[in-house]
């Protein structure tokens, strides 16, 4: 899902950079002192997740994990994902440095949205918690694919064809990430509920 160097047009890169700067500024402001370790752990998880590669029949996919990062960090997911992307680009040559802004938007915006959409469901019941995690995983990858399609559409690609190709290629990742996010969130809520940003959830336990 990392866009390579030289693929996108200047205006798309500039727009991506602007949104990333704004998102990161808001995210940094919202990070609390106690949350910093969680941000580091989840940013590290995101950093190594793209190295994890899964073979499903003839298809070869890799994890993204932006759903769980968003669900557990909220707006702080933006700087966490950006940091991981910078390091992936420098250390693994994944995605172009000039495309960092757009890549961050593609992966961080769905992560933050999934927090607002699905975190209210966390902790209501074990089934709902799993469902929230599953939906966050599916939604984040799906919406990231859609944003990738939009970024390419603005750079002369055919929108519908590109979107269908990208989303259909990511269906296995969506399902796998949905399951992983569902189980991780269910497990974490039981053993370490403090990691869930919804404070009322664990203060009243």
């Amino acid at each position, binding site marked *: *899902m*990392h*866009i*390579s*160097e*030289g*693929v996108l047009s200047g205006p798309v890169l500039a727009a991506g950079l602007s949104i990333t700067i704004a998102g990161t500024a808001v995210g*940094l402001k919202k*990070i*609390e*002192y106690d949350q*910093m*370790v969680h*941000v*580091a752990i989840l*940013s*590290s998880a995101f*950093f*190594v997740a*793209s*190295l*994890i*590669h*899964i073979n499903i029949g003839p298809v*070869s996919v*890799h*994890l993204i994990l932006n759903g769980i990062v968003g669900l557990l960090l909220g707006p702080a997911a933006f700087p966490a994902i950006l*940091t*991981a992307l910078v*390091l*992936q680009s420098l*250390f*693994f*040559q*994944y*995605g172009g440095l000039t495309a960092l802004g757009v890549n961050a938007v593609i992966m961080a915006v769905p992560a933050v949205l999934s927090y607002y959409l699905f975190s209210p469901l966390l902790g209501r019941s*074990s089934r709902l918690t799993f469902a929230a995690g599953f939906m966050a995983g599916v939604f984040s990858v799906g919406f990231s694919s859609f944003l*990738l*399609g939009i*970024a*390419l559409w603005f750079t002369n*690609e055919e929108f519908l064809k*590109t979107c269908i*190709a*990208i989303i259909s290629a990511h269906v296995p990742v969506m399902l*796998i990430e949905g*399951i*992983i996010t569902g*189980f*991780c969130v*269910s*497990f974490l809520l*039981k*053993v370490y509920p403090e990691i869930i940003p919804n404070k009322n959830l664990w203060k009243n336990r």
Partner: protein
Amino acid sequence: MKIFSFFMVNCLFIFISPAMAHKVIVFAWAEAGMIHIESSFGSNRPAKNCTLEIKTLDGTMVHQGITDNQGLHSFKIPDFQDSDLIVYLNAGPGHSGRWTIPKTELVGETTPEKIEKKMAEKQSLEKGPSSVRIISGIVIIFGLALVGAWIKKKQSKPDA
């Protein structure tokens, strides 16, 4: 349920294996009057059926082609070009790679030593990320978090 969840999370991570992703590798060299191109996503994952464009430095198209099922493509060196050749690979939405073949390589004589050197270069490109880089990345993330925590703590302190 707690044990089951823990088991499932671990199972999911056990059954997946580390490999490279995202990085589009394109490598080209001249040998015996031909230009050979190899493309992959690393770790023996060939970039199949991807479009190739070979251009001179001033953007003149000299060849177009498609990689085969092994990510390979070969073609005859075009009539003398007084320019380096740039190989552009389009490996699907958002993924592309490029490689420059210097003009000295196009006109010079190919020797087994030169080919061996090229192959060594290719192998180093295809290597996955080293554990040192992975660990360094994680250390940097935690270092930045430490700096962030220090700043947050300073901000939260009331002014003396």
